[in-house]
């Protein structure tokens, strides 16, 4: 309302009747004009809207068209897209397959260069690649086994087959190569190349080929060792030093010793070469020992022939024994390198047995000679020349045993045999030569001889049993001498008959003084003689007793015989003093008491 009034105020300026009458028309006119103005203005808008409409319509049509066209295109491309998607998926799958196949091939097939390295160069030499390829072939071959467990059995079998073929040809080549290589190892100190060691390691998978190769090596070394030994024997070292071993063949110990030392060295170095060759392999000790035995077998014959010759031509027991000890020592030493079953050690054992036999032959021969031609005991009842000489031999033998290096048990065994072999015949010889003597001579001679043996063996070990036996023999003969000495004294002073009568006297026979030869006068005169003997006891020493060489035994005989005499005096004294025996003046017959006699004699 306010607005309308404001608008009215703009055109209604004069308030008159006309105007008031005209107002209505004015307002109508004005309204008409405004409407007309409205109309014209909206006419423009309408025109513009119309054009917009037509534009939009055109656009709409255009869009419609496009949409339909798009629809058509979509329909048309749908197949294509489907196709593409499927193709895409397929391509992805294929790609995956390709990767798998590549990996498979990579894993299960050899590369061309590997095959090439397996086939090898024309020159026949072997390289590191070969072993790598060989390892691959082997790897593939084992991997195939996994394949066989899956569904891919055909492939697995085929690959296996081809790998086996590759392997076989590669091993064959390797074997030929190693064989050739081994064949060339015939120098005195061969160089074992690392590649050969590797070849041996690879060949271990084919035990037969491995063994053959090792045999080839053994044969080559065997030849080398034999040649080396012959060289050492006849030519000596390079430039003649050391000098050839055979130059010393006149000296059995040096000759045999040098040969044995050479053998020891050779076996030790051969073991070294062999273990170098097999250092990468896991071989059993048995394989090594077998090969080593094979290598060392060749020298057995030349060695044996030479030593046998030495042994057979050697007569001297001491040298033979030293040789025996030498062989024992080297047997023991070489045994630490090669097994006792090896031909070389067997040969040494054989020779050692031979030397043992020859040694005891020589001793027995010596002993038999002693018994064949028994010497008569010399006048001084001392040991005979042959006894002394044999004991000197025994001493030499035992002496060289002292310096030898054989084991104690061995030594003990030997000693027993040696002692028996020498002493038993010696004792027999003494017995035989003593058998023609009278008792005192015999006993004295035996004591002297046995004493000589005792003192010879006293210095050495393991002689206890023999010592005991000899000592017992000496004691037996010393006892005999004691008895002889006492009997001699008694008979010299005319007491022998008196003593034996008293010993056998029995009360029923009546008083002693009444028996024949027992009257107081006879007894008294005998006792007087005994008294003068007491003044100088040495005057009645048996010559045989003074001929005893050992002062200890001499003293023993003197002491024991004096005791024995005292004892018999005591018996006679008691009998004479006995009133039943009717010696009235017994104090003048036996003026000395047994204790006095004992004091005088001791």
């Amino acid at each position: 309302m306010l607005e309308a009034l404001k608008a009215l105020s703009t055109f209604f300026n004069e308030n008159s009747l006309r105007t008031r009458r005209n107002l209505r028309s004015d307002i109508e006119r004005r309204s008409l004009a405004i409407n007309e103005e409205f109309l014209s203005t909206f006419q423009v808008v309408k025109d513009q809207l119309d054009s917009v409409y037509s534009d939009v319509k055109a656009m709409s049509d255009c869009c419609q068209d496009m949409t339909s066209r798009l629809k058509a295109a979509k329909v048309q491309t749908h197949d294509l897209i489907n196709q593409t998607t499927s193709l895409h998926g397929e391509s992805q799958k294929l790609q995956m397959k390709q990767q798998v196949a590549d990996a498979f091939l990579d894993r299960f097939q050899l590369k061309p260069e590997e095959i090439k390295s397996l086939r090898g160069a024309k020159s026949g030499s072997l390289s590191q690649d070969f072993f790598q390829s060989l390892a691959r072939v082997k790897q593939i071959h084992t991997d195939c086994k996994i394949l066989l467990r899956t569904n891919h059995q055909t492939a697995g079998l085929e690959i296996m087959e081809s790998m086996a073929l590759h392997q076989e040809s590669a091993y064959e080549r390797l074997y030929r190569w190693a064989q050739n290589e081994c064949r060339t190892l015939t120098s005195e100190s061969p160089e074992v190349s690392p590649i050969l060691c590797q070849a041996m390691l690879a060949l271990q998978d084919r035990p037969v080929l491995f063994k053959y190769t090792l045999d080839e090596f053994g044969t080559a070394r065997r030849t080398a060792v034999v040649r080396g030994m012959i060289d050492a024997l006849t030519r000596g070292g390079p430039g003649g030093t050391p000098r050839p071993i055979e130059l010393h063949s006149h000296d059995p110990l040096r000759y045999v010793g040098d040969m044995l030392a050479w053998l020891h060295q050779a076996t030790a170095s051969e073991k070294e070469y062999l273990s170098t060759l097999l250092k990468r392999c896991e071989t059993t000790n048995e394989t090594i020992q077998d090969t080593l035995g094979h290598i060392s077998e060749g020298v057995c014959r030349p060695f044996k022939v030479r030593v046998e010759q030495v042994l057979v031509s050697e007569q001297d027991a001491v040298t033979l024994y030293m040789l025996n000890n030498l062989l024992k020592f080297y047997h023991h030493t070489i045994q630490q390198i090669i097994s006792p079953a090896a031909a070389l050690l067997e040969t040494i054992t054989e020779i050692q047995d031979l030397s043992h036999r020859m040694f005891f032959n020589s001793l027995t021969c010596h002993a038999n000679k002693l018994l064949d031609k028994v010497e008569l005991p010399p006048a001084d009842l001392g040991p005979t020349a042959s006894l002394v000489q044999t004991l000197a031999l025994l001493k030499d033998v035992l002496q060289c045993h002292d310096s030898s290096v054989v084991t104690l048990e061995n030594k003990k065994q030997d000693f027993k045999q040696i002692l028996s072999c020498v002493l038993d015949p010696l004792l027999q010889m003494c017995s035989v030569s003593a058998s023609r003597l009278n008792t005192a001579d015999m006993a004295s001679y035996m004591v002297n001889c046995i004493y000589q043996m005792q003192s010879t063996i006293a210095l050495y070990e393991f002689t206890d049993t023999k010592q005991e036996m000899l000592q017992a023999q000496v004691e037996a003969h010393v006892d005999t001498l004691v008895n002889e000495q006492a009997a001699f004294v008694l008979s010299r002073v005319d007491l022998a008959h008196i003593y034996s009568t008293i010993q056998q006297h029995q009360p029923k026979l009546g008083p002693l003084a009444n028996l024949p030869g027992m009257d107081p006068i006879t007894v008294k005169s005998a006792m007087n003689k005994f008294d003068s003997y007491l003044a100088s006891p040495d005057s009645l020493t048996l010559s045989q007793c003074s001929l005893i060489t050992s002062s200890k035994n001499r003293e023993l005989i003197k002491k024991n015989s004096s005791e024995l005499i005292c004892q018999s005096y005591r018996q006679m004294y008691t009998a004479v003093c006995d009133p039943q025996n009717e010696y009235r003046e017994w104090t003048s017959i036996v003026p000395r008491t047994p204790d006095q006699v004992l004091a005088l004699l001791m």
Partner: protein
Amino acid sequence: MGVGKSCLLHQFTEKKFMADCPHTIGVEFGTRIIEVSGQKIKLQIWDTAGQERFRAVTRSYYRGAAGALMVYDITRRSTYNHLSSWLTDARNLTNPNTVIFLIGNKSDLEAQRDVTYEEAKQFADENGLMFLECSAKTGDNVEDAFLDTAKKIYQNIQDGSLDLNAAESGVQHKPAQPRTPLNTDQQPSKEGCQC
């Protein structure tokens, strides 16, 4: 062929029969440790030659003996007949308490027997000897003969009738040389240290 003294000794010390045993020259020696009443005793045994020519040498070995084994061959009466002369020799040269054991060897040869057991037993009893028949070849009774001797010696020492350390029973006079057969002899067994 002997009566088999060395074979007996060998059988006793080595428990083996020694065929083809050569004649003994002089004396042979053997030892063995045995046990008597819980005591270890070492026997020193002298095997003396039977041949006449060694009489002088072998006599020395009787003297210290604590026991003697006198051996004859049951298949040869001649060896039995010589026993008394050997016995005289043994008695003359040994201590009165020395144990003397009579052995009839080769009891395995029953078929060739020439001396009856009873006859020899009677001889032994008359002379106060111990007696056994044995065989060195089969080993039959060998062990017993030696062990019985050792036991008797041990008993004699225990009751004091045998004193090994005392001087011999006085001065012995040379006995009249008895005729000595080839094949009968003694093995004095001397008792050694007790260990």
